[in-house]
């Protein structure tokens, strides 16, 4: 393995000495990242959420000293997302077409439930199944908005409840949830009963006065319980609940698809061309005749080129992802998973390039052949469809694209296992095939 390391260090030194090559290798993915960033910096920066309000327009609810309507709630949502009011059917169409990221439905009776103070009003958020990461982001934003709205409502409710408790204890005129009332109050009520008992005893009806005694006991216990109700009232926190479910499959929004495509094109070209040029230049410089004499066996020479491409793809990929994460709102997520995936994809791309480079006699021929072969195959990998997908799956580009997309868009990662295994198999098979071809060509 020391021979592989020595060749690796040599290739790294040669790469650093080729500033144009290095600039293309690092600059191209950065350019792609900037283009993606520019595309995402426009109107799509804030997700658009369709709002379907099924509640009666104009209804309001008095909470504390504030009168609230659905519009107040919508205004709060606008701080987090772009809200577009739509009828229910149209909102569903827009979600399916990928023009809105989610549909938020305010159900019929929302304000009435809120006003009741008993029934918990529920909002419904439907996110796109094909863009779960964006859906998750919207859900977090709406939860944040609901939480802040809840806090405001809770403070109003608690204030109301404490006022109510105060009036029950001390009595007076009160308006609760839109109703006017005159409350005697426990303190005054107790005093009234005590006065009545005293008068009855003075009139010689001690028996009747005694029958009023349970009322005094009830008032005392109620007062004690209301003292306990004060801290309980302050614990009220969530008058509104948000439920979320995934909608039907629709078109995938550009962000995850575009990002996965940008990764595939830049890494595939970098990995394939590096390995193809590396192998072919060993032949062109005639150094294989020295290496194969037991210094570094040909399969290890191929392996070294594959590893070199894999590490180059890792560096380029992480730079690209870092640039996208730093410059855009797109969530690239799962930083721990990316290095392994980039290494595996880079190894598969490198093995494909090594196969092309092994078959070519000259570096220029290898580069041209690698470019001409990989470009159409990369774009075939981007096209959905079973028939073309078969072609894309026998080269590493299709599975790599599936893995990139899954990492960007599938929160469960359930769809990543198959393409990852296929990538590993292809990397091993292409590396072995490249070693066989190189041996045959080198001895021909």
């Amino acid at each position, binding site marked *: 393995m020391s021979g592989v390391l*020595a060749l690796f260090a*040599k290739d790294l030194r040669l790469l650093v000495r080729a500033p144009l090559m290095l600039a293309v290798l690092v600059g191209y993915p950065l350019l792609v990242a900037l283009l993606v960033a520019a595309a995402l910096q426009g109107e799509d920066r804030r997700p658009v959420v369709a709002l379907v309000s099924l509640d009666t327009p104009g209804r309001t609810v008095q909470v504390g000293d504030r009168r609230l309507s659905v519009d107040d709630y919508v205004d709060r949502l606008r701080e987090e997302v772009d809200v577009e009011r739509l009828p229910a059917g149209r909102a569903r169409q827009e979600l399916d077409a990928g023009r809105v990221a989610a549909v938020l439905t305010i159900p019929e009776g929302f304000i009435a439930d809120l006003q009741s103070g008993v029934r918990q009003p529920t909002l419904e958020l439907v996110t796109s199944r094909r863009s779960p990461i964006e859906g998750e982001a919207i859900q977090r934003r709406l939860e944040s908005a609901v939480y802040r709205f809840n806090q405001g409502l809770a403070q109003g409710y608690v204030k109301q409840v404490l006022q109510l408790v105060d009036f029950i204890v001390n009595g007076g005129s009160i308006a609760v949830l839109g109703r006017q009332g005159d409350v005697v109050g426990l303190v005054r009520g107790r005093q009234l009963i005590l006065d009545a008992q005293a008068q009855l005893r003075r009139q010689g009806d001690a028996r009747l006065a005694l029958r009023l005694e349970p009322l005094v006991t009830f008032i005392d216990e109620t007062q004690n319980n209301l003292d306990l109700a004060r801290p309980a009232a302050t614990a009220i926190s969530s008058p509104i609940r948000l439920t979320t479910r995934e909608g039907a499959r629709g078109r995938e929004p550009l962000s995850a698809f575009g990002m996965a495509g940008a990764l595939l094109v830049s890494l595939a070209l970098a990995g394939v061309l590096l390995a193809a040029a590396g192998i072919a230049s060993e032949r062109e410089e005639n*150094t294989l*005749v020295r290496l194969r*004499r037991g210094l570094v066996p040909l399969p290890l020479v191929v392996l070294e080129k594959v590893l070199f491409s894999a590490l180059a793809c890792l560096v380029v990929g992480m730079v690209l992802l870092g640039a996208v994460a730093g410059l855009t709102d797109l969530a690239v997520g799962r930083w721990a998973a990316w290095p392994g995936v980039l290494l595996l994809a880079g190894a598969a791309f490198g093995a494909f390039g090594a196969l092309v480079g092994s078959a070519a006699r000259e570096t220029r021929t290898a580069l041209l052949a690698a470019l001409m072969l990989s470009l159409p195959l990369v774009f075939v990998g981007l096209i959905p469809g079973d028939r073309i997908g078969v072609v894309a799956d026998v080269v590493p580009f299709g599975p790599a694209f599936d893995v990139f997309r899954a990492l960007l868009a599938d929160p469960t990662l359930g769809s990543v296992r198959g393409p990852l295994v296929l990538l590993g198999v292809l990397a091993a098979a292409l590396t072995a095939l490249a070693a066989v071809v190189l041996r045959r060509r080198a001895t021909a």
Partner: protein
Amino acid sequence: MDARPLMEARALVRRYRRFVALDGVDMRLSPGESVALLGPNGAGKTTLLELLAGVARPSEGTVTWNGDGAVRVGWVPQRPAVYQRLTARENLRLFAGLEGAEDPAAEAARLLERADLEAVAGRPAGSLSTGTLQRLNLAVALAGRPAALLLDEPTATLSPDQRLRLWEWLGDLRAADELALVFSTQSVQEAARHGDRMVVIARGRCAFAGGMPELMDRWGSRQDGADADERAFLRLVEGTPA
């Protein structure tokens, strides 16, 4: 001849699909001996050297170095086998490391001095003149401190003065390290001058093995004049059955 040869090749055959490049060649090499492989283009000289160097495997037959004991062999292909964008020093350090040198940098310095390459040590190999590049090519082959050097037409692309200097240097190496040489050439004079023995390869077979006097005795003619050795060689080659 030494009783125990440094190298012994027996019945070597090398086929490329249906084409037989080498057909049953035997050869021996003694320690410190210089053997010239002589033959026309396509005769099988390079193929024989590649089999001796271990670059290729024989289809049939065996090559045994030092009775299968450990011995290092330096390989000097006709086209320089060095990294063009690495400097002379970096090439030597890399190959010394691959050959297992304990201190590749020190070994590279030793080889630079030995090959008189110190003045161009920091220059990329691709920028060196043909003669200097061939010296580097040869110095790389010495990185493993070999007991024998196998050289494929080492002077084919060199000018007369470069050729002269290279042979002087190879002579010094032989004298200092008792280095055995096997070199291929198309020049009868070069083979006669620098080889202790000649092995003539024609049409993939060993047509002759011995010294110049024996060759002249069998194929020379008194009417040949100044180029008698060349004419004797041509008669030998043309008389070899296909």
